[in-house]
């Protein structure tokens, strides 16, 4: 059935006419939702207990102390290597210096570390055009029916 170019004419709309389409055509195992809630409650309670007791806390503090020590050592080593002190500067070749001074997040493409709902480039997309037309009050249905 061809779609009319007149958006005001009554025409078949399967997504509106068929009410069964809004129902989810899947079942779930019996008792699933109640069980799922119990599992999550048990998991969150177990984690809370682990963090609250001595046996859970001690390893956490050891790991935290080890991590801090590692970071301090790394910073101290790199800082020493990069210092302007003549004793250490000669230790780094030019390529090493570039490596240690390069940002981990590329200055030219910072968006690469962010997850965006939009893929692709910054070019104007069809959606941008339709959005502009809608916001300016134009009737877009004529264009979308071509």
């Amino acid at each position, binding site marked *: 059935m061809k779609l009319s170019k007149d958006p005001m004419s009554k025409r078949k709309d399967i997504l509106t006419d068929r009410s069964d389409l809004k129902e989810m055509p899947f079942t*779930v195992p019996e008792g699933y939702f109640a069980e*799922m809630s119990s599992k999550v409650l048990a998991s969150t309670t177990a984690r809370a207990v682990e963090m609250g007791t001595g046996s859970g806390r001690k390893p956490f503090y050891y790991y935290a102390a080890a991590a801090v020590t590692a970071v301090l050592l790394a910073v101290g080593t790199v800082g020493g290597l990069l210092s302007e002190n003549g004793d250490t500067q000669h230790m780094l070749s030019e390529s090493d210096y570039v490596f240690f001074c390069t940002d981990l997040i590329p200055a030219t493409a910072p968006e690469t570390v962010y997850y965006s709902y939009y893929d692709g480039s910054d070019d104007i997309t069809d*959606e941008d055009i339709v959005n502009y037309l809608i916001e300016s009050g134009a009737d877009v249905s004529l264009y979308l029916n071509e």
Partner: protein
Amino acid sequence: MEKKWSDDRIMSEYRDGHREKAFEALMEAYRERLYWHIRRFVCSHEDTDDLLQETFVKVWSSLPGFRGDSSLLTWVYRIATNEALNFLRRQKVRGMLHAESLDTILNKKIDTDPWFNGNELQRELHKAMARLPKMQKTVFSLRYFDDLSYKEISDITGVSVGSLKASYHHAYTKIRQELEKKF
């Protein structure tokens, strides 16, 4: 728990220190809606189950910091939507290693789903939805199935109402034309 608590009551009980009871009420209020929302993205009960549990674990961890800048509804939906979209991103990468597109993976899951109990038109609708880009898929799921307002969807996605309207119009028209060609 006989009657579902309102969002205000859930947060009030939580702040009064009845945290587990409040969290239980929150899960009861939202578990089904979030389950079906996630299911429309990932097309499998097992994956949905994992992601739903992860969603609620994150909700539990983040509740202490929830300030009420958004409603509880849009906040939990946002967490669930991000879980689903991140899952699809990982599926897409895994699919590339096996030379299989995400569309193909999701369509296979729908075709072989043992929990499917609908008709062919419903199956084709979900397959058409699986083929949508993620923005269109998100807004179509929230608007067509969950009947959320554009303002609520904007709070969930961080996208402007105008862009959402455009995306929904695209998605709706695309799916409608696909289904009307076949049925």
